């Protein structure tokens, strides 16, 4: 079997569940590949190491991939894992926030400077949020919300922080980006370098197919898939992650067809809001195996 190394975008979580299912049900084996899964030290590492060929494949984000392309990195999206944004603008309920304009004059946090502050700015200008103060809260999302240091945070996942907050007795609401004027995009995708793709096209294709099959199987029997995941990732917390999985399930990619128009729309948005400095041709970043 051909060996492939996959680097996750972050530590293993339910977003990656289909990958573990594919591995543990032998789907990779059937495709003639042997996949090693590793975690990065930081979310940008996966893409960097994939582009440099240190790992074969990486789980990355569509915005990150667009940025990488604008920076001239030779990255190519080969598959999809989560097909809509999970990123939201999260707020605590009961503080008078019902619609985006209610955020005017508030203090709003964001998680990743350079990315989420841009999203916040775009969201605010598209939805009439005025006179707000933005602060970088880093990874202290819950803490800063709960302590009242901020009124909302741009960046948390609607499938994850919401669950954690709920489990701790906080009633949270969120605005979904794609419903408030920000172009729809794929939250999690698989990327690799053009060079890797040339050298290992068959294996990569096999990998994407296997994940696709796994997503179908997960859909058909979520409960069993979740049990398998708990076995594969013993650190997982069964209670909260069950809820997170339930929320994530609808977003797993229904197919492996990249939509060049959707990519282009996001790339144009990124250019407009200065997430990137030069235009990116969306279609050139994509590889659809099913065509």
């Amino acid at each position: 079997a051909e060996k492939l190394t996959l680097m996750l975008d972050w530590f293993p979580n339910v977003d990656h569940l289909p990958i573990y299912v594919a591995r543990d049900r032998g789907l990779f084996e059937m495709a003639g590949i042997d996949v090693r899964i590793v975690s990065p030290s930081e979310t940008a590492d996966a893409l960097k190491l994939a582009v440099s060929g240190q790992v074969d494949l990486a789980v990355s984000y569509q915005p990150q991939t667009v940025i990488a392309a604008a920076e001239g990195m030779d990255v190519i999206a080969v598959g999809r894992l989560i097909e809509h944004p999970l990123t939201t603008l999260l707020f605590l309920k009961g503080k008078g926030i019902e619609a985006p304009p209610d955020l005017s004059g508030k203090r709003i946090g964001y998680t990743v400077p350079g990315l989420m502050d841009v999203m916040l700015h775009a969201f605010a200008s598209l939805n009439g949020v005025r006179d707000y103060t933005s602060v970088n809260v880093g990874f202290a999302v819950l803490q800063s919300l709960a302590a009242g240091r901020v009124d909302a945070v741009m960046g948390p996942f609607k499938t994850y922080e919401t669950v954690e907050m709920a489990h701790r007795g906080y009633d949270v609401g969120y605005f979904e980006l794609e419903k408030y004027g920000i172009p729809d995009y794929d939250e999690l995708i698989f990327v690799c370098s053009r060079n890797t793709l040339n050298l290992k096209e068959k294996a990569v294709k096999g990998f994407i197919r296997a994940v696709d099959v796994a997503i179908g199987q997960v859909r058909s029997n979520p409960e069993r898939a979740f049990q398998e995941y708990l076995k594969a990732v013993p650190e997982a917390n069964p209670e909260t992650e069950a809820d997170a999985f339930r929320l994530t399930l609808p977003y797993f990619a229904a197919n492996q067809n990249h939509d060049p128009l959707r990519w282009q729309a996001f790339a144009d948005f990124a250019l407009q809001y200065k997430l990137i400095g030069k235009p990116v041709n969306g279609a050139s970043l994509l590889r659809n195996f099913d065509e």
Partner: protein
Amino acid sequence: MTPGRLVPPALIVVFLAVWEAACRYLAVPDFILPAPSRIGIVAVENAPLLLSHAGTTLLEILLGIALSVAVAVPVATAMFSHPAVERSLTPLLVASQAVPVFAVAPLLVVWFGYGIVSKVLMAAVIIFFPITVSLLEGFKGCDREYRILFRLMGAGFRQTLRLLWWPWALPNFFTGLKVGVSVATIGAVIGEWVGAQHGLGYLMIQANARLRVDLVFAAILYLSVMGLGLWAAVDAIGRRAVAWKVKKA
């Protein structure tokens, strides 16, 4: 401080009591700062998991200590014996202290892969600096009169090093080593951010990402105990090695 004297005295009890009270009466949420009692329970309940991760981390730390001592001693010696080396290396060493790991993590992966090497290196890098600086200052603190005595007795560099400078600088070495082993825990943990599959640092990142703050703190408890143990061990060895100082008093 001998291990026996590490038995937590009054101040520690007070510290824990204040912490516990703060969590209970100020209603500090668990995920901001868990109460010590909660941390204790989690630490005991998850002992098998934590211990198995702790083993990995301890191994990395011990190897890191060994590696950094093995490098720091000759480096400090070279810097001491050749002022040109000191002038060259000092800026590099000091500058290296300002490099955050996340910037070099991919590089470490590129060069050393996902195995134990990169973690050991991270731990070693962190311990290295205080040891080298302390040892060098110790060497430099040696009274000139003794150096001259050795020169008059015809001692070469190696002999002077072995018989004079090294015993002279030993207390400083141990001061540096104590600072070093205390921060070595952090070094290994940071190292584990680079593509680890096991270890307390890995566990902490996982738990942190899962917002299991109590488990994070339980892991910190294990790390702290490990750090204390290393400190106490170095202190005990240090005391033995400079017994003549104690005896003189």
